[in-house]
């Protein structure tokens, strides 16, 4: 490694999920905060092993759904009872039962759109470039290998100390990532 280029962090490769989870607990307990695990599929128990807190996504979705509900009722009331009173077969201009289907559909639609855009937004995506993509080894993160990345921005990160710590985690390969 050259001292001149900025180091993004250190990449650890594991061959199976069991070793990864054990290593993640050690990284968590060592007090690192700016680090991540990369796996081809979600592994149960990783949230606890990494100390990930719950996401606020459900609250956003609730807000999205309620917005859809309110907009749908307002739209149907304004369009059929106010802006152009639409009298058909003597039915009330605004009767809740007849307006429920559209209200339901728009509630679901807004909630689903919030879920989709909210999840990708909170994950910071789309983001087509990332330092980990420079590693040829990392290409297997979406197939059959398991990785931990400890970022150099982490307050506990020291060039020597973190390398020694990483070596103790049982990774099959350790690599330094350039930014």
């Amino acid at each position, binding site marked *: 490694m050259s001292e001149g280029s900025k180091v993004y962090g250190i990449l650890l490769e594991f061959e*199976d*999920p*069991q070793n990864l*989870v054990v290593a993640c*607990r050690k990284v*968590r307990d060592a007090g690192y*905060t700016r680090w*991540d*695990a*990369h*796996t*081809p*599929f*979600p592994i*149960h*128990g*990783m*949230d*606890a*092993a*990494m*100390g*990930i*807190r719950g*996401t606020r*996504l459900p609250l956003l*979705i609730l807000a999205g759904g309620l917005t859809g509900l309110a907009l749908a009722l307002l739209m*149907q009331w304004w*369009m*059929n009872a106010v802006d*152009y009173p*639409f009298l*058909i077969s003597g039915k009330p201009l605004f*009767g809740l039962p*007849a*307006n429920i*289907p*559209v209200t*339901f*559909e*728009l509630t*679901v*639609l807004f*909630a*689903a759109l919030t*879920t*989709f855009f909210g*999840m990708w937004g909170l*994950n910071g*995506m*789309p*983001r*087509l470039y*990332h330092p*980990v993509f420079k590693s040829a080894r990392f*290409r297997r*993160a*979406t*197939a059959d290998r398991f*990785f931990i990345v400890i970022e150099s921005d982490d307050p506990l990160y020291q060039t020597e100390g973190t390398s020694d710590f990483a070596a103790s985690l049982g990774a099959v390969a350790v690599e330094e990532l350039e930014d």
Partner: protein
Amino acid sequence: MSSPDLRPPIDPLDNTSDDPTQPTTLVLGGHDFTSVTDTVASIAENPNPPRAWYIAFAVTASMTAMLFAMIAYLIVTGVGVWGLNNPVGWGWAIVNFVFWVGIGHAGTLISAILFLLRQRWRTSINRFAEAMTIFAVICAGIFPAIHVGRIWVVWWLFPIPNYQLVWPNFRSPLLWDVFAVGTYMTVSLLFWYTGMVPDLATLRDRAQTKTRAIIFGILALGWRGSHRHWHRYEKAYLILAGLATPLVLSVHSVVSFDFAVAQLPGWHTTIFPPYFVAGAIFSGFSMVGTLLVPARKWFGLKEFITLHHLENMNKIILATGSMVGFAYATEFFIAWYGGNPAESFAFVNRAFGPYAWAYWIMVSCNVIAPQFFWSKRVRTNTVAMWILYIFVNIGMWFERFVITVTSLSRDFLPSSWGYYSPTIVDILTFVGSFGLFFMLVLLFIRFLPMLAMAEVKTVMPVAHVSGESKPIGDYHGDIHILPKAPKEAT
């Protein structure tokens, strides 16, 4: 001379079980993560698909061209090119619409409802079924759009200001349909795409050419398997499933309101919403099976889409087919018990009137055919089940034909009765919609991962980490106990 061994040979690909309390192996053939990725991704990466693919694509693309030619002819000439006339003003266009929307129900049912019910076998078939849903809804959407007659004002269906300053009538089931099918299409698409992003990232990372790397790079949104992302991803997926579950039940209910809210004998019944939903699931699973049985054979996926998967689908077809049969019987009972002469006539007319031939095709295909699935030998025989799927596909089209046409052709006033027949344009348009459907399926198989690789990996025994005392192997059940860590800020 020793007596021959009469026991059937043990088939390594037969993982069906008669004991539902025991876990079933969902991925056979001793696969590991590497071989799962290779097997599935290589189908979408093969630069030279088999010749049969090209032949099938040529045939279905020609049929699609015929569909658009028929639509062009319809628009240029008018709806008179169809067999519609008084008293039957709703013909094949509506029948085909309900038929395709119904087929489109299986995908979201498999992805959402089976996900919430923790039916882990869904992982091998959900991607394919969701794709099929989207293609079926595309086919369905064509028919109401073109049947309005003046297609250039079809945007009046949406609440968009127009020069007449009139808004859509929100108390009409036909408008509810626009919102229901539109929402269903959107949510199905979001669900499908969200589920596919990790697999698109796999294709990006395996890309051998620059073009593939760029296309899949953009489609994968920069996915890198981060566990902080997986955490929100799984939450979002669960909530999307929760949202899609009432949605899938609502869509065919709303479609049935098109009929049930009308005053016509044979349509004006409260049984329609549940009966339509059961029929939709029934027809959707049959279409999934019609496509999966050949696909798993041709693309070497028997170890992923196992007999256990197919048997489970056949059990659902048996259950929903029996519900449909029960609904037919209930309709007749209520027609008699309700004491309304117009209603009882409508049902006697269905079974013994001029369209009796269609009615009995429907009953044979939908009520009698699925009953063969009581036999395990039929449920696990791919040829037998495929033949039964075809019967169900035919029967469910005839169900919509019987409902739509018999009631319209003979309503309250005998002097206005008539007999409806389709024209060649009707027939070619419907045949063309199959071309579009199969063409889209072929393109999907050719270019996108047809099995949810990331999800299949989670149901493999090696994927599971269950605390230090039990290292690996316990993959059934969803309890994964880990020592609770104090939650920290991240």
